[in-house]
């Protein structure tokens, strides 16, 4: 994280809050959220490095503003669906950090009982609907959740996240077409970090991101995800519109990942130069951007910031300790929850072991 700057590019920080209609308290809250996400993901990286976390693990470092700003305006009864870079979005929607970390560890107290891992975090009570591993396949799912909201004449909304690569999948286009035709309450959010794994978006698309939903009749908007206040204000207004019956919306939420695609990848290399990553970290760290604004505007001082950071580190440490102490799933539960209904007649398991 860059050192504190005394000068910021914007003239008056109080004006920034006023411009976005964000209270000082809420701005500090967003600061606290982003610090937690950063420290949580750093702990996840450490745990991965020593083998506590297995499989694929995609961290959100650099993209904290996108998660904090877009989920903050949601109500408890709104839904979030995501792809596989979703630890912080789960926490933002109310899933306890302990349950997220324990899931990464594959422990019994994990959000998905150790069945899902990093890519498949679920919490029905928080309406956090996963954690999905097939690029773009969560987009029709979210559309169906929005269908259910309309079917039941409810006033919840759905936010579904996808990476920039997902917009080239058929699932994306089929879903947007139906959402537009049926005017469903869903916000399609591309967390556009510029790269689908190691492929720059411009290499796989002739058109701009914001052009993608237009043929389907879904309005597009663009927001800077590294600016959490702008992101929050944008989503606050959009969520209200969609809740009010505007039909689906699409957001190009522009962001940048400071790490490799997954834990097993280099941060930079053949597909993006180290200088690019360093420049973006220096200029576009969402935590630094907000911190400097709040320090300059007087809503926060350095001591207060450091105290919040210490608290975030403690929560992340507690989550790690919790995960470490949580038991591995009991062997006797291997077959549990394969079927929601074990029929009275006939066999459902065929491996010769007793289900």
């Amino acid at each position, binding site marked *: 994280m860059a050192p504190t700057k005394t000068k910021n590019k914007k003239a008056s920080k109080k004006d920034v809050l006023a411009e976005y209609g964000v209270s000082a308290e809420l701005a500090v809250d967003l600061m606290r959220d982003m610090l937690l996400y950063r420290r949580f993901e750093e702990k996840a990286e450490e745990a991965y490095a020593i083998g506590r976390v297995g499989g694929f693990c995609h961290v959100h470092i650099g993209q904290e503003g996108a998660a904090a700003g877009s989920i903050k305006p949601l109500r408890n009864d709104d839904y979030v669906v995501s792809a596989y870079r979703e630890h912080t979005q789960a926490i933002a929607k109310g899933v306890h950090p302990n349950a997220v970390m324990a899931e990464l560890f594959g422990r019994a107290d994990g959000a998905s009982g150790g069945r*899902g891992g990093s890519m498949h975090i679920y*919490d029905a009570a928080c309406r956090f609907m996963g954690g999905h591993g097939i690029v773009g396949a969560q987009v*029709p799912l979210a559309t169906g959740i929005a269908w259910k909201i309309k079917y039941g004449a409810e006033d919840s909304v759905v936010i579904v996240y996808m990476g920039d690569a997902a917009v080239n999948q058929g699932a994306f286009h089929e879903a947007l077409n139906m959402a537009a035709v049926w005017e469903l309450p869903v916000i399609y959010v591309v967390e556009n970090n510029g790269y689908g794994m190691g492929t720059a978006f411009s290499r796989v698309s002739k058109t701009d991101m914001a052009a993608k939903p237009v043929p389907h009749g879904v309005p597009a908007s663009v927001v800077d995800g590294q600016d959490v206040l702008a992101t929050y204000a944008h989503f606050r207004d959009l969520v209200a519109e969609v809740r009010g019956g505007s039909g689906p919306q699409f957001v190009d939420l522009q962001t940048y990942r400071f790490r490799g695609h997954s834990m097993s990848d280099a941060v930079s290399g053949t597909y993006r130069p180290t200088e690019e990553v360093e420049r973006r970290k220096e200029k576009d760290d969402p935590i630094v951007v907000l911190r400097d604004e709040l320090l300059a505007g007087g809503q926060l001082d350095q001591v207060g910031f450091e105290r919040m950071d210490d608290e975030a580190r403690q929560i992340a440490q507690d989550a790690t300790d919790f995960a470490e102490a949580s038991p591995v799933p009991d062997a006797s539960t291997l077959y549990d929850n394969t079927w929601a209904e074990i029929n009275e007649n006939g066999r459902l398991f065929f491996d010769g072991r007793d289900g």
Partner: protein
Amino acid sequence: MAVMTYRAALNEALREEMQRDPDVFLMGEEVAEYDGAYKVSKGLLYEFGDKRVVDSPISELGFTGLCVGASMAGLRPVVEFMTFNFAFLAIDQVINNAAKMYYMSDGQFPMPIVFRGPTGAALQLAAQHSQACETYYSHAPGCKVVTPATPADAKGLLKASIRDNDPVAFMEGELLYNVKGEVPEDDDYVIPLGVADLKNEGSDVSIITHGKMVHVALQAAAKLDKNNISADVLDLRTIRPLDMDAILETVKKTNRVVYLEEGWPYAGTGAQIVSMIQEEAFDYLDAPILRVTQADIPMPYAKSLELLAKPSADRVVEACNKVLYR
């Protein structure tokens, strides 16, 4: 008992379940204003309105995924595939999302959803429109597979499938829609999943089968009967759950088995069942088990070739004679 077609029986099952549970809705291509490509949903739009009987765009992946999401959120969708041939576009949503969601979420999201439509060959529709698809679905834990052969089974099993709390691939037969049969008039006629049905009783040989091939098996049994050979025809009715008790019972009775299925042989339903029989009833077998399947080729168009490629009663008779060493 009322005599009705397989198509009308399915229609009744849909209507009764939609009357019974407001969370049940039907979505698919041409299901509403056109009354269904095969008229299974005839009249349902008029009775239930366009909120519950929904014409989708031709977007199999998309509307299947939408219904999987609606199921995840608490509804009980019935997805109609115009045919299962087109469901390949949607199989990611069925296998990766519907079938695995309950396990991956550690039981947080039951997925009550029915994927239904015709499977298997009709007449001269060539390779892309003529294939039996059940093994793609029965392969995956988390997905139940139901293959009714008669109007009564179609009704009772569709009602059970809609009420089941897991994803069900409900596979009909294009050539079965006009088949007539007796259906109990009880408006709560439900056949539990996982119960096979002995469609013909014999003692010399067992023909085990499912779906449309039940009718071919019955033709074969009639031919065998003329030569004083009596065949058990066991209709599995559901592939998963599988009524292994009924399979073992007929094997232990006749000691000779032919498995008949419409699909290809490699890793087919018959392959699974042969494996289980040799494992669990080896000592009861008096002959190797034979399988009769579609020829191991994409379905040809020419009528003469198509006939050669499809399983036939004559081929079943031949296989029965072989296991009887006649």
